[in-house]
C-alpha cells in the first residue's frame, strides 16, 4: 500500500429511497422525511416510517439549524483522500426538526467546537463529483 496513492473521495450513491434527499442537497436544501401517520421525522430517507411503519411519508425542507450532540477531531483519516482536510471535525448534530445526523463542522477552528454548540447547514461539493454534501458551520 502506497501512502501517496490517491483514493477517490467517497460519493453517496443515491438509490430509490434517498434520491430526493440528494437531489435536494444539490439545490441547497436539507430535505426531511416526515411521517403523515405519526407526524415524526426520520433520518435517513426510507420506504417506511421506522417509528410506526406507515408507508405514508412526505418531505419538507429543514430550516437547517441544529446543535452539536458530539464531535471528534480526526487526525488520522480512514482514507488518504481526506488527508488534505486534516484535522477535520466529524460530528453528530441534532437538527431542530427532530432528527440526528452525521456531518462535518466546517468554517471554524476545530478546537472551538463543543457539545451544545448551535450550527447551521451549508452545502459543499465533493471533490471529483457534482454531488453537494450537507455540512454544518457555527451560527
Amino acid at each position, binding site marked *: *500500500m502506497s501512502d501517496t*496513492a490517491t*483514493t477517490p*473521495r*467517497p*460519493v*453517496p*450513491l*443515491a438509490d430509490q429511497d*434517498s434520491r430526493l434527499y*440528494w437531489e435536494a442537497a444539490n439545490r441547497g436544501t436539507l430535505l426531511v422525511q416526515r411521517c403523515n401517520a405519526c407526524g415524526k421525522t426520520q*433520518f*435517513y430517507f426510507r420506504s417506511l416510517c421506522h417509528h410506526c411503519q406507515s408507508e405514508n411519508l412526505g418531505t419538507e425542507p429543514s430550516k437547517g439549524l441544529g446543535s452539536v*450532540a*458530539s*464531535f*471528534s*477531531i*480526526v*487526525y*488520522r*483519516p*480512514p*482514507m*488518504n483522500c*481526506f488527508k488534505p*482536510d486534516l484535522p*477535520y471535525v*466529524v*460530528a*453528530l448534530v441534532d437538527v431542530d426538526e427532530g432528527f*440526528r*445526523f*452525521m*456531518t*462535518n463542522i466546517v468554517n471554524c477552528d476545530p478546537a472551538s467546537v463543543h*457539545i451544545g454548540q448551535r450550527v447551521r447547514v451549508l452545502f459543499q461539493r*465533493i471533490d471529483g463529483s457534482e454531488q453537494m*454534501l450537507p*455540512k454544518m458551520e457555527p451560527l
Partner: protein
Amino acid sequence: MRVATKAIISGVHDTKVGALPESTCMSLHAQAGMGAIRDAGLQVGDIDGLLTAYSFTSPQIMLGAVAAEYIGLKPKVNASISMGGVTAGLMVAHAVALVKAGMCRHVLCLTGDNRLTGLGEKVQEALAQVGHQQYERPYGMSVASGFALAAQAYMHEFGMTHEHMAAVAVTLRASAAKHPNAHMKKPISMDDVRNSRMIASPLRMLDCCLVSDGGAAVIVSAGDVARDLPKTAIEILGVGEGHTHEHLFMAPSLVDFGCRESAAAALGQAGLSAGDVDSAHVYDCFTSTLLICLESMGFYDHGAAGEAALAGEFAIDGRFPVNTNGGLMSYGSSGAAGGMFHVVEAVRQLRHECGDRQVRNSSVALAHTLGGIFSAHCSIVMGRS
C-alpha cells in the same frame, strides 16, 4: 437426540496471535478448531454443529462450508453469523440454543482471520467499508472517530477523563505481559498513553486496540457429557443480547447502550447479579469502550469505572479483574476472533488454569462482545459446574 437442560463449554483454544505471515484465514480456523477438539477430548466426527463468522482477508459467501471442507468436518448443522465484533458472543449464544433444543451435541464455534498480514493492498478497501455508504463515509468517519463520538459525549455527561482511559491501557498491558501468547507485552506508562499520537479526539493511538492475526474456538456441548471431559466443564449460565441501532446517529442514547439489556438478561437467566461476577472479559476495542460498557452493564455507577481503573481495580489481583489476558488492547484483536479470545480467557479463568494471571476464587465470569459502534451486544455468564 436428547434435549439438553444445560449447555457447557467443553473445549477452547486460541492460536498464536500477532504477526503470523505464514498463516491464512483457513489455517487459523483449522488450528483453532483442532485445538478446541483436542482440548475437549473429542474426535473430529463428534462435532455435529459448526458456527463460523466472517473474514476480511478471505471473504466467502459460505464461510461455514469452506471451513468444514478445509478441516474435514461433517456437521449436521452449519451456519455463519456476520454481525461485526459481537459475532463471537452470538455464536456461543446460538450454540447454546442448538444444544438445548437437542439439534446438536457438540457445536464448534470457530473464528480466525489474518488481519494484520493478510490484507495487503486490500487495507484501504477494507477501511472504506466502515460506516454507511451515503450518510457516514462521505464525512470521513473512521472506526476510531465513531467510538470517539461516544467517548466525547461520555466525558461531557459523566466526567470520564483522559487519565481514566490511560489507566485502562496501562493495566491491560500489564496483564498481557503475564500471558505467554500476548501480541503486545512491552510495559507502557500513563505518559506513554498521554503522549501517543492523537487519532480521533479524545482517542489516542494507545487508546486503540491492536490489529492481529489469530484464531480462537470454543466448543459448546450438551451438559450431560460433562463427566466424560478431560477438563473442568464450564456451564453457560445465561446469555443475553442487546440491539439498538447500526449507525451511531440512530442510537437512542450516546451514553447508554444495549449492553445494559444484554448483561441484565444474561445475569437474570443465571439468577445472579453484577456483584457475583469474579472476572469480566469485555470487548475493549478502545479504552473508552471498556469503561462505558462496564458502567452501562451495572458493574460501576456512571462515572465510577474510570476511578476504579485509576485505582488498579481491573488488574488481575485487583478488586474486579477485567480482561485478564490483556484484551483486544494488548492480547490481540483478529476480527471475530477478538471477541472469542474473551470467551476463551473466561473459560480458562473458571478452570483455574491461568497460572500467573489466575484470578483467586474464580467461579463466575462474564464475557461480552460488541459490534458496530455500540450497536449490538452479547453477554455470556459462565460458571464452574
